């Protein structure tokens, strides 16, 4: 019986959702392949985290050391590479998160194991693992496999698997000693900073009118503001608008911004990259206006308008004002 490894991601004492999602997928694969699931937990004073994972894995391999108090790709890489060398797991899952995207490629070169990033599913075929992933902003899907290898590394996109428990497991906890005598990480943690603080809290809005790259020019954002005002809603946006400094970061919806829960989310000129849509999972109804009929947003929106936003938005604003007057 071999192990599927899941690298536990946690921050400020809390287990990140991606960890539960990876454990779910590992559990599903393990059941079909008669493998076991090992959660690999690095950190300092992590016993309560281990406890919270104990019914989701068969083993929890714990490295508890003060030097692991903050995430360090350098230390994680060295320790996990050593563990891989020792145990030769066929499959290692890492979150496709900021931290995972730093760790996994380094680990791949260090161990010589191949890597598929940002996977949305893992298929198992004749003892080989195949990654399902997206290219070209989700317009194309690809199945990727590897040349003959003893194991492989997959990073997993957040939100693609359930956070639920799967199967009946009771983990054996294995405490490992800090294995390194002489390693000095080249990067030192200083602090966490809040980058999205502001006066408007889009997470509390009932109606969001959200604007994306399709708006074209900064001055056109006035159109969106007018519509939001007519609707008594709040303006939000996707990443490209913040990148261009047209609206502040605290109005950004998505993975690196805020997750929102309005009754209605109107997405205007937003193509619907998964990083953006991840922030809209809690929206009641999503209405999308985009002139590209193949824009990924039409796959998740409830209502779609395939048209030029500059034709729709002004007319909609007038209709709303008219209806409110009546």
């Amino acid at each position, binding site marked *: 019986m071999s192990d599927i490894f899941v690298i536990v991601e946690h921050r400020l004492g809390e287990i990140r959702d991606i960890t539960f999602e990876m454990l779910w997928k590992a559990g599903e694969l393990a059941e079909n392949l008669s493998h076991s699931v090992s959660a690999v937990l690095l950190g300092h004073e992590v016993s309560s985290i281990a406890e919270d994972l104990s019914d989701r894995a068969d083993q929890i391999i714990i490295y508890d050391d003060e030097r692991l108090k903050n995430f360090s790709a350098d230390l994680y890489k060295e320790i996990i590479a050593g563990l891989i060398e020792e145990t030769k797991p066929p499959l290692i899952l890492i979150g496709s998160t900021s931290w995972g995207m730093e760790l996994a490629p380094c680990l791949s070169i260090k161990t010589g194991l191949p890597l598929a990033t940002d996977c949305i599913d893992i298929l198992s075929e004749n003892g080989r693992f195949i990654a399902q992933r997206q*290219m070209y*902003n989700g*317009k194309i899907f*690809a199945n990727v496999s590897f040349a003959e290898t003893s194991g492989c590394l997959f990073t997993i996109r957040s939100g693609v698997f359930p956070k639920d428990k799967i199967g009946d497991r009771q983990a054996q906890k294995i405490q490992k000693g800090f294995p390194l005598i002489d390693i000095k990480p080249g990067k030192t*943690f200083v602090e966490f900073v809040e980058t999205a*603080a502001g006066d408007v809290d889009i997470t509390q809005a009932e109606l969001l009118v959200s604007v994306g790259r399709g708006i074209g020019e900064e001055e056109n954002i006035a159109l969106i503001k007018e519509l939001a005002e007519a609707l008594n809603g709040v303006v939000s946006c996707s990443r490209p608008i913040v990148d261009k400094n047209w609206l502040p970061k605290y109005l950004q919806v998505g993975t690196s911004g805020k997750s929102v829960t309005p009754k209605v989310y109107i997405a205007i000129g937003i193509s619907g990259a998964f990083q953006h849509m991840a922030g809209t999972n809690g929206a009641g109804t999503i209405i999308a206006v985009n002139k590209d009929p193949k824009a*990924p947003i039409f796959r998740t929106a409830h*209502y779609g308008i395939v048209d030029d936003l500059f034709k729709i938005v002004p007319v909609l604003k007038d*209709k709303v004002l008219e209806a409110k007057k009546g």
Partner: protein
Amino acid sequence: MDIVVCVKRVPLTEEVDLVIDAQKKGVKKDQLAFVLNDWDNYAIEEAILLKEKHGGTVTAITVGNEDDEEVLRRCLAMGADRAIRVEAGDMSRFDSFGIVKILSQVVKDLPYDLVFTGVLADDDSYGMVGMMMAEELNLNHSSMVTAIELEDGKVRTTSELEGGLGEVSVVDLPALITIQTGINEPRYVSILGIRKAAKKELKVMDLAELGVSDGELAPRAIIEEVYLPPETEGAQILTGDPDKIAGDLVEILTKKGVME
């Protein structure tokens, strides 16, 4: 401060119908327009900003064919001092790992304090070349960086985490940093600017010169098949003229209780 920036030319795919090629290994590219990868545009701008402030040089590198020189000329017009293109023939025979080997082989012989790549490329979205190079070249690193400040022999970076959180770190130089979009406002490049930059050095190297053989570059990742996204139920599409559509929308908004 010498900075090397690795860049890639990618197709523009927004508002484009992508067509899968006959072998089902990629998309047909002959009808597509190409640009400098968005992340790389921010990376080259950040390098030039640092050079303007602290002095030094900026070198832009790409692996590709002659058409890919277009993005290097753009980098030169923005303010890079020189550019290197590695002529590697048929690019479809490489995966990220091969590209990492080639780029690392070029970079290791250049003077540098910092190496920049974009966080990911808009086409295949693997997002692994930067950090793989860091490991290959045994460099300190920081990823998804949205702010950089130089300090004595060090660099202070802010990495973008999830949910609006940033992580500030100090990294000893030399280092490799992957640059996130939004870190700066990339400058505008005029046709005239590109023409003027034609005088700057654009060196072409081949794999033999770099001393890497095809054997070392053999791909580990195999694209089994690419395909269009599976059908989903999708959105209910509202049709008609703008007046009709706006009327339907007001009805939907009323029903959802947001028109009070």
